[in-house]
């Protein structure tokens, strides 16, 4: 078949052609919504129209076969309309209540999981990992799968004081939006890169390599016609490896993950917060990362047992204090949790009013 003539600068198709009729009619005129179950909510328009939404889990990494299955379900129940969420779930919407239960039954029969709405754990924002990135210290998709298998009750049915947003980044570049999450996992290298000096000359551009280092740890090594790395400055970001393959940073034994907690992006009650480091290192344990998963489950459980209604993880900790967070969770406090980078002056305590 002939290849059609390309067009440029057309941008995406206009969104309105993909909006279901009930949405077009009530666009901008919704009155309120109610969460019926963690998998279903209903929006009610000023017109009195109702629109039921069913949210379905997705691994984000989808085969076209599964996307076609989404299409088939949309055709059968939703006149072909459907959408994805910012956390990569799938949503099917029906304006006719009589279609709701058949839709849910079909989803159940096909093995889809519904949930994530309201005070629940929704899908985990994450990055590419070993599936598709050169920089990865771990596999994001695998970690997410192992975590969510364990946290499934909080997705499907078990209520929490508030939403708990989870995220995984597979290296400190953090391509996936996790720094402001209730619980974030970030994978880390822990070792200064090694340089194969004999290969450097042919494969790397000296100025590029020096320029690649965000902490200016790299300087020329004329004797070797290569570069050297100042171990005191290097924080293992891997950028130098990115531009120069003979510099290697991956280390199967030492690469691992760190856990940060207490971030949020909304402004409800308190301002947006960054996540803060509480567990500096857990070994990389594919295929199911048992210790990292247990740590996350433990933090969620302690939060669920102790937080007040509507408190996010970070708000709960702000109320009880970080010293109490560490004592309640039993997490060992380490030097890594003390900021020795840009934020030390803002993060040390400057009063004698702490708890024992």
């Amino acid at each position, binding site marked *: 078949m002939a290849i059609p003539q390309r067009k440029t600068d057309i941008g995406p198709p206009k969104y309105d052609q993909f909006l279901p009729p009930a949405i077009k009619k009530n666009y901008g005129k*919704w009155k309120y919504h109610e969460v019926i179950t963690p998998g279903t909510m209903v929006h009610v328009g000023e017109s009195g129209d109702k629109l039921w939404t069913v949210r379905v889990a997705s691994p984000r990494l989808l085969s076209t076969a599964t996307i076609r299955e989404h299409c088939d379900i949309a055709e059968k129940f939703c006149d072909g309309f459907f959408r994805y969420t910012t956390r990569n779930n799938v949503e099917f919407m029906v304006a006719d209540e009589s279609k709701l239960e058949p839709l849910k039954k079909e989803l159940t029969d096909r093995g889809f999981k519904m949930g994530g709405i309201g005070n629940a754990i929704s899908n985990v924002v994450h990055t590419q990992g070993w599936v598709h990135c050169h920089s990865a210290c771990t596999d994001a998709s695998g970690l997410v799968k192992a975590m969510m298998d364990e946290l499934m009750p909080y997705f499907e049915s078990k209520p929490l004081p508030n939403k708990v947003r989870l995220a995984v980044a597979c290296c400190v570049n953090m391509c996936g939006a996790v720094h402001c999450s209730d619980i974030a996992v970030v994978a880390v290298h822990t070792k200064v890169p090694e340089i194969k000096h004999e290969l450097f000359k042919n494969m790397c551009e000296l100025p590029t390599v020096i320029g690649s280092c965000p902490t200016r740890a790299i300087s020329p090594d004329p004797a070797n016609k290569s570069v050297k790395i100042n171990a005191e400055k290097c924080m293992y970001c891997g950028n130098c490896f990115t531009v120069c393959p003979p510099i290697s940073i991956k280390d199967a034994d030492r690469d691992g993950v760190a856990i940060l907690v207490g971030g949020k992006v909304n402004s409800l009650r308190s301002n947006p917060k960054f996540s803060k480091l509480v567990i500096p290192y857990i070994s990389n344990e594919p295929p199911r990362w048992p210790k990292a998963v247990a740590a996350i489950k433990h933090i969620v459980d302690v939060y669920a047992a102790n937080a007040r209604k509507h408190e996010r993880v970070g708000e709960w900790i702000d109320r009880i204090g970080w010293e109490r967070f560490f004592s309640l969770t039993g997490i060992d406090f380490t030097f890594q949790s003390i900021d020795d980078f840009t934020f030390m002056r803002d993060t040390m305590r400057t009063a004698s009013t702490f708890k024992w």
Partner: protein
Amino acid sequence: MKKYSTPLIDELEKGPWPSFVTEMKKAAKTNEMSNDAVGHLEKCYATKVGYWKHGGIVGVLGYGGGVIGRYSELGDEFPGVAHFHTVRINQPSGFYYTSAAMKEICDIWDKYGSGLTNVHGSTGDLVLLGTKTDALENIFAEYSSRGWDLGGSGSALRTPSCCLGPSRCEWSNYDTLDLCYALTQEFQDEIHRPMFSYKFKIKMSGCACDCVASIARADMSIIGTWKGDIRIDQAEVANYAKKGMDINAEIIGMCPTQCMSYDGKEIKINNAECNRCMHCITKMTKALRPGTERGATICIGSKAPIVVGSLLSWVIVPFIKVEEPYTEVKDLIRKIWEWWDDNAKPRERIGEVIEMKGMRSFLEGIGQEPIPQQIKEPRKDPFMFYTEEDMVGFKAKEAEEKKTGKYKF
């Protein structure tokens, strides 16, 4: 097709959460590239390291982004992933699709690529994972002739994205979907032909819930807000109380500005003191609704921690009307880019440039007055600059006071 033994990643087919390994295997049934991707991943799991190389320069003619080069170090062992490039397709606002459109996307991808996708990538694009260099021009022709364009990458405007806003959310303070579409169309050149010092991201949320996390991951965060009174339906307030909500504990007591009261019958709000945090509105969806004079707050500068620490966006314009044809927003964006362009060194995000050059330089550059809504607190030190004009201004004010006999601080 080669059959790989995959005992490690098979473990990730167990358990209730949908499995990405199952997805990869589904695609692998009919696709050589995906099949090798499965074997390649098992190898990563076995050795606990990755084998992808950082990309080469790949793309489509005339564009400077939208395709991300990806090659494997193990191309001989797994030829299907020797090239495994990513194609970013610009998503429609709000991630709505019809099955017909989506099936067409799948058909083209099955023909030229691995059949694997991310729906969606963190930038918002529909991400097609894994194709070969020689397929790129055909892929672009097939998609663009059917109305789909590539997204941004490199030192460009990245694909703008938004929350679903007015399409299905009662709290949206402006039309996020339409603004997202309008800006994407307006700035096509800036998306496809990298002309900036570094990347620039615009994300749009309709209210302070910020469902696209714009405050944390966009150089420009456009967050909906309102002026005027929260609308109260007292009958519904009574219903919440009847259904057992402890309104004093859950709503009044958690209001950060303590501007609400409840006498057992009605909620009263001192709207002048409300900071529009959305807490009460999100907890009493039927009883409380945002005010009706709607617009957005514009914040600038967030970025990830590489390397001197991450930033959250700073409030620059506390309130702006967001109405078609969005001239005010577009003009502001152009002014921001102009200042950034004039002041940035290579690879400096706008937040970093503002830190280097000072907020004053930025605000003056884009023509914004200083106002207290921009800050959390004033500076703590006395090490500040006085320009000649500042002094002339202070002196003129005092001269005026002498005339009127009234101090104006």
